[in-house]
């Protein structure tokens, strides 16, 4: 384990930029810590902390000098590796001839700074969806550089500990940092990371520093805002497709799509075509979509999931159960974003717990109630 002082961190940022990476990091915009292009450590949220709860998020100034003393905001690396809108192909139609040109592969190389363990896991979850069939994703993914930061400040809605995805970065990073007063301990995760680190002028971390770094994530584990009992989630959710809790949550759910949009693993997308007025130029664009849209399940004979109940059920069951069948991993990394950024504060951990305590309950037919 190495130790990098504050200046060294500045050199890290500069070196990434010098190597042609577009550096993406946390920065404050419109009252939240978002991910955006940053121009060095000065753009990071120094001395900022956030408070999160279901449907609520506020920034506060702490007055200290910590750069990473907060838990993630709404954005994750998804925004960059799987962009919200992306042209897939363009086509030209002239005098009966049709030419279709796939969009050129992206040239940009990102360096992500400050990703948390849950988000590094989330990237690996999305890899299973996109890595083969989406060459643009694969290129961006493979050419990017990942600087993880071990989490010492879990948010009020976090439950990565329950999902086994944090708070300590275990994989998926080139470099992992732990912020201590006055500097960082650094661990390389790849040869690429090692090579970069060797250029930075770090020193071996002391035993005390290594212990302090371990204490950061241990403390985080204890302060985790939420927990989730994950035992046999697929079985639980599959057997409870007609549970009355779905109706109850549907009465609160806005079907606004926010949870799916902020979720770092949700991958659903639409492909939409556009055409010029004269009909000669067309584009095919992919954009983030959501199983909470009614039209998402549209078929000519009728939309499949018309009710909010069925859409909520689809989402939750997909995340925590069928994802495992489909991709061999849970779709949830316990980041809690869907809880914070739900405008009415619906909490997945609470919904699942409610089903668990009444496992097997079935919606009673209305005639019987009346």
């Amino acid at each position, binding site marked *: 384990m190495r130790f990098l002082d504050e200046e060294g961190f500045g050199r890290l940022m500069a070196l990434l930029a010098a190597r042609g990476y577009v550096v993406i990091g946390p920065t404050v915009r419109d009252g939240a810590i978002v991910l955006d292009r940053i121009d060095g450590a000065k753009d990071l949220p120094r001395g900022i902390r956030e408070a999160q709860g279901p449907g609520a998020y506020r920034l506060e100034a702490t007055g200290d000098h910590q750069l990473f003393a907060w838990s993630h905001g709404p954005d994750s690396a998804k925004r960059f590796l799987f962009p919200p809108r992306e042209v897939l*192909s363009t*086509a030209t*139609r002239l005098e*009966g*001839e*049709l*030419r*279709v040109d*796939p969009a050129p592969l992206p040239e940009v190389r990102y360096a992500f700074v400050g990703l948390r363990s849950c988000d590094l896991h989330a990237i*690996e979850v999305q*890899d*299973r*969806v*996109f*890595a*083969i*069939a*989406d*060459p643009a994703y*694969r290129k961006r993914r*493979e050419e990017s550089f*990942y600087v993880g930061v071990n989490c010492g400040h879990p948010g009020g809605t976090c439950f990565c500990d329950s999902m086994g995805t944090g708070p300590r970065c275990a994989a998926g990073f*080139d470099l992992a940092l732990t912020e201590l007063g006055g500097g960082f301990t650094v661990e390389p995760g*790849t040869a690429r990371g090692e090579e970069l680190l060797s250029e930075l002028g770090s020193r071996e971390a002391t035993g005390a520093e290594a212990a302090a770094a371990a204490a950061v994530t241990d403390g985080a584990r204890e302060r985790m805002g939420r927990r989730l009992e994950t035992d046999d989630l697929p079985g639980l959710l*599959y057997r409870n*497709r*007609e549970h009355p809790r779905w109706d109850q949550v549907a009465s609160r759910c806005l079907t606004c799509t926010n949870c799916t949009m902020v979720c770092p693993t949700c*991958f*659903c*997308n*639409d*492909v*939409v*075509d556009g*055409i*010029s007025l004269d*009909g000669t130029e*067309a*584009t*095919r664009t992919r954009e983030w*979509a959501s199983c909470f849209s009614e039209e*998402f*399940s*549209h*078929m*000519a*004979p009728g939309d*499949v*999931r*018309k*009710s909010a*109940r*069925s859409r909520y059920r*689809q989402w939750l069951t*997909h995340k925590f*159960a*069928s994802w495992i069948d*489909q*991709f061999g*991993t849970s779709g949830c990394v316990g980041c809690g974003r869907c809880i914070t950024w739900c405008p009415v504060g619906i909490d997945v951990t609470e919904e699942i717990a409610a089903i668990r305590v009444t496992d097997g309950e079935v919606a009673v037919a209305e005639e019987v109630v009346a």
Partner: protein
Amino acid sequence: MSLDVSASAVSEAEILAGVAPRVATVRRVVQEAYETYTYWLTLDDPVVRRAYRFEPGQINMFGVVGVGEIPISVSSDPARPMRLAHTIRATGRVTNVIKGLRPGDRVTLRGPFGRPWPVSAARGGNLLVVAGGLGLAPARPAIYRAIRDRGAFRRVIVLVGARGPEHMLFRHELDAWAQWLRFRGIETHLTVDIADDTWPYGEGVVTTLFPRASIDPRVTTVFTCGPEIMMRFAVRDLLGLGVPARRIWLSIERNMHCGVKLCGHCQLGPYFVCADGPIFRYDEIGELMGVAEL
């Protein structure tokens, strides 16, 4: 960074075939039934055209540039993959533009996708095809294959239902099968919900043909395709006759955008219809079909 993608069930080859749209030319348009036409296409690139193969029941993503791309089953003979038929009913945005296509027009194809009808699973026994309405289009390639391989089956039975005579697809072909192929042991029975004077076959829903087909549940493999409600009734009766659930196969439709398990639209419980289907075995999805709005 190298990626761990071992969890993916889709083969690289399938995916490579599916990612890039290919231009195809409409060669012939044939009206089959009310608002339903068959489009005969050839892929423009000769190399791709010669390499293209599909299995009965597979789909292509059929694209009209600037308008959209939709899943459509290939309805022609898998033994002749150089000319591809797609039989399409105009029901909405994309299909209404398709209705206006004429020979010479260009479209795009991506595919083929999906799990096919397991025609060989029926070898040695009886193959029963139960199709309703437009459902005959995806089933037809399986019938072609069975006809070519007639000797492998004890019996081949084709039961087709439609709302009325004007909704019966491939009418001339069906007439010919009913009349001539029975000498080769292909039994074809047709029915419509509401018949008119010109209709020489049965009247009633497709399940009313079951007694005539004298189904032997011990050796019969069933392929059924049509509206979900029709398939549900057919399956209920077939199970009642003693056909085991694992020998009943059906074709399921869901909204699809990608064809390669990454758009999320076609999920049905744990499955992606584009890759795990569209052909499913009844014991795999029977329970799911019973859940409303899944």
